[in-house]
């Protein structure tokens, strides 16, 4: 089990080479940084998405539709899904949502899932064996962008429509690539909030899950540049491996070393509570902090009236690939790059996302409230 919020990223930033952003103490060099892509993402945040407002998972930002009539086939369909893994709550919630979505479509007779257990090599083999399974459509959630590209290309060549979501691949052979706005936007949402709340020279600690997960890297890269501009003092960027104990120790150490912190930035919400407790146990007020849409964080935020923001990487994006598959097999057009809206939870909207009876690690933006088996399916 690794990154507790190991989620999407977009193919785009892979394609275009990026120029270096200045390295900072504690941070890994942002080889990911790609100004153009970042600007694009930041811009997307303000564009009104097309599609039903009450169904963000069907919305798309600036879609460029592609014709899919050649894939039209009468049901019932066999849809195959090669999943990177289900080894963290984010993917768990997402996967359940996806299964629920499948149940909404009677014409999907067979839904085959192969789980790669976070192993690139296994996912490649999985895709190879799916190619021979006679699927009508193949959905892929790649474990790693670069390394799955050849396998996905191979899958495309079988003529079966391929749908990629969450992380991207370095090829546009898939019929559609589904993702929320992206990592830069996520990182920026959080960073901008802190810049708002803090003054020049204030000390901010960045807590990261682990290195090497592309999306998490773009989140940090995004935040870094914004802190730079605002002259925020990024005193450190530490990897917690999603472990609350580690997180708490690190934060405590920094509080002692720096004699206090003015803000906490996080690339994922998993360890937000631990960070908050570190301040509590030191008898200090919790400074402005950024998290994510896990229930435990949102509830803590509400209870203690924290100064916080929760950018999201919505789990409802797990519904979209199934919807896309159905559209494609029905010959309806779909966006080539399907950019889903990526809302952030703020002071004002917090209320709407609190779901007291959901598990602490449930993600508020699952878009699953009106789905069959809610809430039990997401509770047990």
């Amino acid at each position, binding site marked *: 089990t690794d990154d507790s919020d190991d989620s999407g990223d977009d193919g785009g930033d892979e394609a275009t080479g990026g120029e270096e952003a200045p390295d900072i103490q504690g941070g890994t060099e942002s080889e990911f940084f790609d100004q153009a892509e970042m600007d694009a993402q930041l811009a997307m945040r303000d564009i009104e998405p097309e599609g039903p407002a009450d169904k963000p998972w069907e919305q798309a930002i600036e879609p460029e539709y592609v014709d899919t009539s050649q894939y039209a086939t009468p049901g019932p369909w066999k849809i195959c899904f090669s999943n990177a893994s289900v080894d963290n709550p984010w993917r768990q919630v997402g996967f359940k949502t996806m299964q629920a979505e499948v149940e909404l479509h009677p014409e999907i007779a067979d839904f085959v899932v192969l789980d790669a257990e976070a192993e690139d090599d296994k996912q490649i083999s999985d895709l190879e064996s799916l190619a021979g399974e006679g699927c009508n459509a193949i959905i892929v959630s790649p474990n790693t962008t670069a390394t799955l590209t050849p396998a996905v290309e191979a899958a495309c060549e079988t003529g079966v429509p391929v749908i990629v979501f969450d992380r991207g691949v370095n090829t546009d052979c898939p019929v559609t690539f589904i993702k929320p706005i992206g990592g830069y936007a996520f990182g920026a949402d959080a960073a901008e909030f802190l810049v708002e709340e803090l003054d020049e020279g204030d000390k901010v600690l960045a807590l990261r899950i682990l290195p090497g997960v592309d999306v998490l890297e773009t989140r940090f890269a995004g935040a870094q540049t914004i802190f730079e501009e605002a002259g925020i003092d990024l005193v450190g960027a530490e990897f917690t491996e999603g472990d609350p104990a580690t997180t708490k120790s690190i934060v405590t150490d920094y509080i002692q070393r720096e004699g206090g912190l003015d803000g906490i930035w996080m690339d994922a919400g998993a360890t937000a509570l631990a960070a908050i407790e570190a301040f509590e*146990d030191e008898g200090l007020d919790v400074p402005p902090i950024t998290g994510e849409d896990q229930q435990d964080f949102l509830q803590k935020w509400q209870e203690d009236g924290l100064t916080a923001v929760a950018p999201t990487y919505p789990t409802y994006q797990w519904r979209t690939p199934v919807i896309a598959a159905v559209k494609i097999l029905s010959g309806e057009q779909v966006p080539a790059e399907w950019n889903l809206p990526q809302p952030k939870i703020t002071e004002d909207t917090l209320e709407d996302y609190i779901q007291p009876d959901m598990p602490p690690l449930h993600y508020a933006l699952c878009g699953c409230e009106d789905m069959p088996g809610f809430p039990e399916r997401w509770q047990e």
Partner: protein
Amino acid sequence: MSTTTVDVPEAGAEAGEVVPVPSAGRRVWAALGRTAPVFAVLAVLLVWISIENPNFTDPPVFLSFLKRAAPLAVLAAGQYLVIVAGEFDLSVGSLVTVTVVVAAEVLADHPDGTVRAMATVLALGAVVGLANGLITTRLRVPSFITTLGMLLILEGAVDYWTDGAPKGALSEDFRALGRGGIDDVPWLEQLPWSVVVLAAVAVAAVLLMRSDFGKRLIAVGDNDRAAALSGVSVARTRTIAFVLSGLAAALAGILLGGFAGVSAQVGDGLEFEAITAVVLGGVVLGGGRGSVVAAVAGALTLEALFTLLNLLGLAAALQDAVEGLIIIAAVAFAAFRLRPDR
């Protein structure tokens, strides 16, 4: 017997008549001789830390260090018992995770069932230890494999059961042991419970090793056939060691869960940290030698190392590398420095 007498120098064994048992003082000295390196390293690290962070020396800060070290120290004590008996326990890390997750599940159903939750997880730890012990001793599976398998089983089982996302949360009562403490203690301000627990465990372990059981345990690790022929029930002795290690893991889980709350990552890699700690303490893998105090000291050393690396603001990524170097260096140093006493 992998011990070689060749090139092990030794003062004359032919001193004629039996000289009386040396004074307690001399025994302590002998014990230090066996374990001094770890204490030296620990001292150096602590001094260094307090240079980097002057207020490290005032009680509350130091206590919070001990508080943080407590879980690993408890784990190390348990691991020591298994290692000195000539075995391994690789399952403790996953057992810690299981403990936390299960406790959360129990508390989800019984919000104020703190005692119930603790009892449950301790029982669980004992059962897992028992399983490890029986499989190793009765089925004759090398403990490395037994506990490696158990690690896979526990991780798989708990994830399967919770769908990879622990439900429920740990009640404040439950967390008190790992998070809270006895307030308004003069001069100390707050005496963390976990430090109390740590002290208790350490004392208990020392007493245990001085007891007949302790002597049997270490004899079993040294030469199980001789022990068996002397009437020691080897299988039972080793099994008990595993059970105690399981209990220690559960206790560590309670402390860690208390310290930082629910998570499915909490136990990751702890088994190796615990074994490293024990070996840092100069305890010999393979059994039969080493003291539990040193093992616990080894845990503190490791934790001190982590703290120091953090204070030095060493690029997070490099910390592992440094840790690796230090571990090798310390053990290599011990390999030369350590001379078994007579």
